[in-house]
């Protein structure tokens, strides 16, 4: 049985991902700045991608963050309510903002 298994494995060898079994990406717990709107921010943004995506855009203007949230809703069809969008934009500008409205 072992011999058959070995032969089986060898015939698979030409193309075999180095990973045996399912491939899983580690979950990275990006820190969330505890501020007004943090829960709404987490709930809405983490649906589709990690918060690292947001952390690594650099500090940006209010207009930038508004544009990004709208992009998520319009182009990527994220189910974010208008009410939540406002909260998220304010949170992003307050915590990942550069102090400039535009």
């Amino acid at each position, binding site marked *: 049985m072992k011999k058959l298994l070995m032969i089986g494995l060898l015939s*698979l060898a*030409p*193309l*075999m*991902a*180095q*990973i045996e*079994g*399912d*491939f*899983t*990406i*580690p*979950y*990275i717990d*990006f*820190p969330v700045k505890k501020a007004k709107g943090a829960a709404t921010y987490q709930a809405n943004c983490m*649906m*589709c*991608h*990690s918060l*690292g*995506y947001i*952390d*690594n*855009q*650099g*500090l*940006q*203007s209010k207009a*930038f963050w508004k544009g*990004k949230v709208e*992009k998520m809703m319009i*182009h*990527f*069809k*994220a*189910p974010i309510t208008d009410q939540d969008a406002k909260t998220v934009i304010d949170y992003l500008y307050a915590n990942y903002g*550069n102090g*400039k409205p*535009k």
Partner: protein
Amino acid sequence: MERRDFFKKAMVTAGSVALGSSTLEASETTHPVDDRAISPIAFPEKRPMIMYSDRPPLLESPREVFTSALTPNDLFFVRWHMPMIPKYISTNGFRVKVDGHVDKTLSLSIEDLKTKFKQVELTSVLQCGGNSRSAFHPTTSGIQWGAGAMGCAKWKGVRLKDILEHAGLKSDATWLGFNGKDKAVYSETANFIREMKLEDLNDNALLAYEMNGEDLPYLNGFPLRLIIPGTYSDSWIKMISNITVSKEKNKLLFMEKAYRIPDNECECETPDKLVEKTKPIEKINVNSIIGYPQKGSKVRVNSHIVVRGVAFDAGSGIKSVQMSVDNGETWKEAILDKEDAGDFAFRAFRCTFNPSKVGKLTIMCKASSNAGEVQPLAKEIKWNHGGYRYNGVDEVTIEVIG
């Protein structure tokens, strides 16, 4: 390292760079961030790298890999657009479909690709359009990459042209669309589909199943990915599952909104006056990076330093690399590696100098291509809203001690 400290160090540089620069005028372009921390958490099949996101995975190579022409698979950068990457790909069950405006629809297994077509090996640079984006000011939209969103590997696979010939292109076939197996969380969200004009397809485009003599790592597109040498990698679809030939251009989100630069002479704009007419980024520009020394390295006076790095362009080949250690007053010719892996590959270079004075010293390296392109100084590079195509003369500042 304390987890919080790690995140702080990893991200604070982007913030400190953005502060103080007006958002309504373009400020001077500087150099990409070069001191991001390596993540303590290694991703599958990878050694620890600089990590921006897990969903979807975004990993950057540390600068030291750029002392060699070939980038190791387990330090090769990673950039996905969609977070739902299949957990398991059956090597026997995998198929890449070629359909649309063709005589014959194909459904090819990896075995088919390996046995029914001519096998081709080609060494090529793979560079993200936003590589070194963090150099632009004010901070542009997009992930604030340092210089490590690129690599060079020996790819093995089948020419895309051979596969299309096998399928038989109809006389009015004009566009090629590419899609991979990664998906968004919501079914409503568009897939990361890219397309190109058939007439722009060159002989070097490959469907590659091997990278540096090994199967593609999962994170770099196992079991099959597209390679289009000489271009930015935004269209180099990973886990490629569909190639669709069409008569007309498709309306695709990721073509219309992403990876575009101003369609003007300077390919530039200012934040307060964005250029409306844009074009997709395509051919890479001449570029080079210093892999050693690193920022802040301490060396002794008279210690004979060998500066090492890589240079590359879109395929005309590197003519020369020059180094300056006196802020660009004088330049010394670097030695290019003898191992010529072809014109699409990294060309490794080395240049020696002997530091004679104590204090800070800045090393600059400038590449010139056979096509006549010369790397501009960082400050000469003009802004674009996507932070694409940065190729400023690299600078590394070290400390010479007594």
